[in-house]
């Protein structure tokens, strides 16, 4: 039956004792706690820390000013390196400067591709939210989308808005909607209401894997024939992609972002390496659809894709 499979844990691999390399690295993100996407960034970072014997200090706050204080925290703690998301580059500039002034190397991840160099970060790992949104928009527009619905599950979030803006730039008929991402029932009935209000909606773009599942339910309940596409992956969505219920998922490979951010700092500290050679390292967007899902599906079960 559907319970836990007694698998040997192959995601962890061997790994070193934490701190055996002598380095402490702080990772600071704008995660809203409990999001599967961020959980994968964290997993990647933890795996890298394990592989390289680094002590990892992870902290997060969605509020830019509090994130700035967390960076200050890391500086106070005299860590050896800092990896941070730069979703609100202007707001974080001061704290990043405090870090570089204290001779702590900083790398950017996930967001801030345009500004990371200006802020003084050494390297960058991630995709660009607007670019990701645009490529999603392009792809559905090419498939004939006239009136897509972009679902924002956290009001006022800069990165979510950027994705929708990108989609709209490629598919001009795109309309936004706000839902309460912390309540699946509410997401479902809100989408259901929207689909009933506007029957011309032909695509639903969700910005997180769990929301895509709710969108599928809403679509069924409303009797709509809209197609669902989503950002990010998890095991259930991968399954839906395989089953053809979800057209495709745009994966920016969060696990890689986390892993590389920590590894790059380790290599920089240990060996002076500069990954990307002064250019950002793009981890996405990569499309997961029927063509490649079979390869990817197993990895989603280990929480690494």
């Amino acid at each position, binding site marked *: 039956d559907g319970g836990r499979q007694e698998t040997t844990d192959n995601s962890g691999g061997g790994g070193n004792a934490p701190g055996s390399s002598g380095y402490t690295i702080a990772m600071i993100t704008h995660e809203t706690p*409990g*999001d599967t996407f961020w959980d994968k960034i964290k997993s990647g970072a933890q795996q890298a820390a394990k592989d390289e014997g680094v002590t990892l200090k992870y902290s997060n706050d969605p509020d830019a000013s509090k994130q700035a204080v967390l960076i200050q925290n890391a500086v106070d703690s005299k860590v050896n390196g800092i990896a941070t998301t730069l979703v609100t580059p202007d707001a974080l500039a001061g704290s990043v400067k405090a870090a570089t002034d204290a001779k702590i190397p900083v790398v950017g991840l996930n967001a801030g591709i345009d500004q990371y160099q200006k802020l003084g970060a050494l390297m960058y790992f991630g995709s660009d939210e607007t670019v990701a949104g645009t490529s999603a928009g392009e792809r559905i527009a090419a498939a004939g989308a006239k009136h897509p619905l972009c679902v*924002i599950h956290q009001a006022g979030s800069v990165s979510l808005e950027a994705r929708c803006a990108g989609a709209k730039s490629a598919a001009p008929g795109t309309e936004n909607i706000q839902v309460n991402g912390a*309540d699946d029932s*509410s997401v479902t009935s809100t989408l259901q*209401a929207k689909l009933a209000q506007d029957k011309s909606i032909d695509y639903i773009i969700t910005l997180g894997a*769990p929301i895509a599942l709710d969108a599928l339910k809403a679509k069924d309940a409303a009797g709509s024939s809209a197609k669902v596409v989503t950002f990010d992956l998890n095991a*259930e969505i991968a399954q839906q992609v395989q089953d053809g219920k979800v057209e495709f998922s745009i994966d920016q490979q969060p696990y890689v972002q986390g892993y590389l951010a920590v590894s790059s700092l380790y290599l920089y500290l240990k060996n002076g390496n500069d990954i990307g050679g002064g250019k950002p390292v793009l981890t996405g967007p990569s499309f997961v659809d029927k063509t490649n899902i079979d390869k990817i599906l197993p990895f989603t079960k280990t929480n690494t894709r």
Partner: protein
Amino acid sequence: MTHVQTSPPSTAPPSDSANRVTLGLSNRILARPEVGALVAAILIFVFFLVSAPAFRSGESFFTVLYQSSTIGIVAVGVGLLMIGGEFDLSAGVITTTAGLVNSMVCWYFGMNLWVGAILSLVFCLFIGFVNGFLVMKTGIPSFLITLGTFFVLQGANLGVTKLVTGSVSSADISQIDGFASLQKIFSSSFKIGPVTVWITVIWWILFVALAAWILQRTRTGNWIYAVGGNPDSARAVGVPVIRTKIGLFMTVSFLGWFIGMHTLYRFNTLQAGNGVGNEFLYIIAAVVGGTLLTGGYGNAIGVAIGAFIFGMTSLGIVYAGWDPNWFKAFLGVMLLLAVLVNLYVKRMSTARKVG
């Protein structure tokens, strides 16, 4: 004992006092605490009927009802608790805790889901008991105690889920034994013509009816009003204040468990971070429905109408297709209007003079 005077005291029982007035039927109806909320609900309903064409269908109405029921079921408990003079800020996360406990215990140990559901119920009741017990024993306001529980549960939801499943969402349980029967109870739906009726709506009506009965017609209801209105006086005349209040906390966590079961069996997996923020929706529903924040006054039907107003407004805005950026602003204005109408009706009912 033969000395007992059996004649009434010499002051003859006075007849009806001269300035005693009897209220007409219309006034007696208007004076009921839920009528204000009802009038507000009707106004908002008509408003959306006019301004949102998509709102004018049975399907839409039942979608609204479903949405209201998922808030309304817990709100009934929260309303009772607030009438009893206490808050529960952990009512939102406990729904997620309930689902997670059930889902993870069964997934991890390969148990039947029924066992997990019952374990989860016991656990939730225990949390409610702890809330109530701490509030009563320490004298610390419930706002603080349950804020603590809220944080602890929120953290534990995440931490434990991550430990058990390796990710921050629970595993799909739809293949585990017992799923079908539990889904029947907690999250099935049936069709009446084109309209889908969720079973939560039925449950909601049942819980509201039960709560209304308890409040108006039973001794327990009397005690709830008393412990909320004036706990010292209630204690002085022999009301078991501690028992009543702990019972109320446990009622809230029972209903939280119920909605947790619904969410779990409707969506099969749960995000460990969910549920946060809903505690305020429950409080909003209760207060919009005429419950006094300071306790001692309110009514189960009012709370149900409050939940309905909230559900209707939040979906009505979507049905009307208004700019989503302004969503919250519309919601705020609607809530204020609902409360103002409620107040206006109440004023009318006491100011109007009969005879």
